[in-house]
């Protein structure tokens, strides 16, 4: 009898608590995929969404708008000298830190000098060009560069978040500092490592009240569980892009809206340009022709993607050169191989180089990314059809990096044949991206993991980095794309569209930032009035 009573009591207790405790108006539950440290500039983890969320708390001087163009934010007015070396800023008055202290030009000067002293992979290289910083009062600041730099506006001005001097000036080990006092539209109210973050709106934010009262960011590790939770309304949205196979179902679901836009993250076939056989241009051109990227987009992305452009730049980017196009043709692949002397001499079904070496390569692919693994499989099949043997090796991140980009240092060389690789969206936005990707000097071509060498591209890259005029930048980038498309150091397969789903009963004023998605500052707060 007592046992029965206990069971009934437990059952009643459970039933009473099935009503969710949160869910009042103004609270948005946005699931993230992994821990983001203390959400401050030295401990946040991922570029996306880590940087996007961290900059809701700590702010850079400028903010990229929906077209990725940096717009003044903390800065009210700014001027640049004719030679591009001197930048002068006037801040908005009455900016405040979350603890009430005033935000001044001193904090900016402090931050820029702090990240130079305390190495951070993202911030330190961005300020390397700065010669001096001078403040003239709490709202006036002048930065002098040692040379004009095309990327300065984007990085660091629209990238490096400002730290409060009064809290950070005595910090010698920034990575162990978990303070979260920032100046942004949101404050970190609660942080449970590995479980969730709770951000609340900063009601005295200078640009106006943020659009959502409270942001709860639970960490959900599994993709399927994330979307199950979205469907079941246990979360309102997620930073995770919607998988192609779920799009139809979610578009039909009630209470959920699906937004789709250009995705700037690229998936490409990376060649080792120092490989004895793969350094032959005709062979690379043949391989590129054998891969049916149109079919890849249909099969792997269910059509939600854009075929890769041979000059790397996404067709939606303002710097895309429309004259640089590529159409794959299996016939052309066979023709090129025959012309270059790759014939099956020993009748084993695999073509051999003129010196007898068979065309057998390994194709590295990242585990845990089913689209890339399947893509590698398709590439293997198509290459087999034209007589090239590409063995697919699926490995985890660190093992692949050890072969393709040892220690993330291009100067350390490489040891691989081909790899299905990819770069994240911000690379597409970086003005100097084609230099970073293709310059032969490993100090400038910091992501030239194939070891590509071309003196024309090198010179164009150097010019690009020093050009501040946007029209001139465009011309240089157009030229670079032409050369790269002809040389085929990489073969871009596709750009996956950004597809994001959110529940419509909570927050709908999402702004899609081109190439990147809906998790950005503009979705939560309107730009300040000048």
């Amino acid at each position, binding site marked *: 009898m007592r046992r029965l009573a206990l069971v009934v009591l437990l059952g009643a*207790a*459970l039933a009473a*608590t099935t009503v*969710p*405790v*949160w869910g009042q108006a103004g*609270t948005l*539950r946005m699931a993230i995929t*992994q*821990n983001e440290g203390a959400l401050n500039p030295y*401990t946040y*983890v*991922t*570029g996306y969404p880590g940087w996007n969320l961290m900059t809701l708390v700590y702010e850079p001087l400028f903010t990229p708008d929906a077209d990725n163009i940096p717009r003044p934010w903390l800065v009210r007015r700014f001027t640049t000298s004719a030679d591009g070396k001197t930048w002068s800023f006037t801040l908005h008055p009455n900016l405040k830190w979350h603890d009430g202290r005033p935000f001044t030009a001193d904090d900016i000067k402090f931050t820029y000098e702090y990240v130079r002293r305390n*190495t*951070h*992979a*993202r911030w*330190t*290289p961005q300020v*390397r060009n700065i010669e001096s910083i001078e403040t003239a009062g709490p709202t006036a600041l002048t930065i002098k560069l040692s040379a004009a730099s095309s990327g300065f506006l984007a990085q660091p001005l629209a990238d490096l978040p400002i730290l409060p001097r009064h809290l950070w000036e005595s910090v010698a*080990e920034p*990575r*162990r500092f*978990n303070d979260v006092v920032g100046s942004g539209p949101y404050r970190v109210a*609660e942080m*449970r*490592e*590995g*479980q*969730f973050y*709770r951000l609340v709106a900063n009601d005295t934010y200078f640009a106006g009240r943020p659009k959502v009262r409270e942001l*709860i960011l*639970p*960490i*959900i*590790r*599994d993709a*399927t*569980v994330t979307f*199950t*939770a979205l*469907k*079941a309304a*246990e979360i309102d949205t997620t930073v995770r892009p919607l998988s192609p196979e779920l799009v139809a179902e979610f578009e039909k679901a009630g209470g959920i809206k699906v937004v789709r836009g250009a995705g700037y993250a690229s998936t490409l076939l990376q060649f080792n340009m120092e490989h004895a056989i793969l350094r032959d241009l005709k062979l690379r051109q043949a391989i590129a022709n054998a891969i049916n990227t149109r079919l890849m987009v249909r099969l792997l992305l269910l059509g939600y993607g854009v075929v890769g452009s041979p000059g790397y730049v996404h067709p939606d980017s303002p710097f895309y050169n429309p004259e640089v196009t590529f159409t794959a043709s299996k016939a052309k692949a066979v023709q090129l191989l025959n012309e270059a002397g790759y014939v099956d001499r020993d009748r084993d079904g695999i073509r051999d180089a003129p010196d007898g070496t068979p065309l057998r390569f390994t194709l590295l692919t990242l585990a845990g990314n089913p689209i890339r693994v399947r893509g590698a499989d398709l590439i293997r099949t198509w290459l087999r059809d034209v007589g090239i043997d590409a063995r697919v090796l699926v490995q985890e991140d*660190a*093992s692949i*990096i*050890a*072969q393709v*980009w040892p*220690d*993330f*240092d291009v*100067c350390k060389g490489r040891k691989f044949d081909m790899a299905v690789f990819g770069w*994240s969206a911000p690379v597409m936005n970086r003005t100097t991206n084609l230099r*970073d990707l293709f310059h032969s000097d490993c*100090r400038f071509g*910091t*992501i030239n993991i194939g070891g590509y060498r071309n003196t024309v591209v090198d010179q164009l890259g150097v010019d690009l980095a020093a050009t501040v005029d946007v029209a001139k930048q465009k011309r240089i980038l157009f030229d670079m794309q032409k050369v790269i498309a002809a040389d085929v150091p990489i073969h871009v397969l596709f750009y996956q569209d950004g597809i994001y789903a959110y529940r419509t009963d909570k927050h709908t004023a999402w702004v899609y930032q081109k190439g990147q998605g809906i998790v950005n500052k503009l979705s939560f707060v309107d730009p300040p009035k000048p």
Partner: protein
Amino acid sequence: MWRFFAGRGAQYLLVLGLTVTLNFALPRMMPGSPMVFLAGEDVGFLEPQQRAQLYALYGLDQPQWRQFLTYLGNLARGELGYSFQRGRPIAAMIGERLPYTLLLVGLALVLATLIGAALGALAAWRRGGSFDLGTLGVAMLFESVPSFWLGMILIAVFAAGLKWFPIFGAVTAGAALSGWALVVDRARHLALPLATLTLITIPGTYLIMRYSMLAVLGEQYIATARAKGLAERVVLRRHAVRNALLPVATVFMLNLGFIASGATVTETVFSYPGIGRLLYEAVLNRDYPVLQGTFFIITVSVIAANILADLAYPFIDPRVRRR
């Protein structure tokens, strides 16, 4: 008596020494370096001297043997160090996660052992009957399903479908609960991962118990007990089950040590913040200190469980008592 402990003690110290060395060496033998996880995703843009600076900061520029000595020195002081990726003291990180793991995996182990043993005993008792064949079939089923699949099914039916339980997490994110409400919240979040883990652990115990029971039931003393005229239930409980429990107890104690290693797959599916997931991510991130610290905790835990088993066994099985 002391000679026993001295002998065993020396053995355990040797095991500890070997595992401590392996804990240090194995992560460093994996290809790849912790670089991106020290520096972040844009590490490609760092200059050589900045990279060197980062490496020096973490002591990674030292020769291996010196890093090993530093590691040993820290360990002797009880200092587990700081995570490369998170910059937080590892003791704190493990301390946050261990209670969740102990709760989930420990409770699952206890429940699975109790339920499995009970079912196994009954099945053997009614060997060949419908109960026996039924439970055997179900046990085989749960033995073969992958844990993540089972977890997903439970989520789909009980969480997303019937909405009896939440889909993810250990607590309701962002809710400020206290007292009874907090206990219930945690219990609701624990229910499905616990069910998943228990269901896949029961078959092991069930099968061991069942076969052990069958062996025991064939023994002479069972026939004697029956011949003495004892009731069936008494024979079952006092004579058969007690003796058949020995292998189950052994397995239980062995598994006790491994609770500290968590249940990575279940923790991932349910986003339950346990040690298993911490360990898995540390491997991917080449976070050497976290790997070393966690492996050490697991090693100590397993050794402790072994010592416990060594001490407890003479009480469970009188035949093992030394003269």
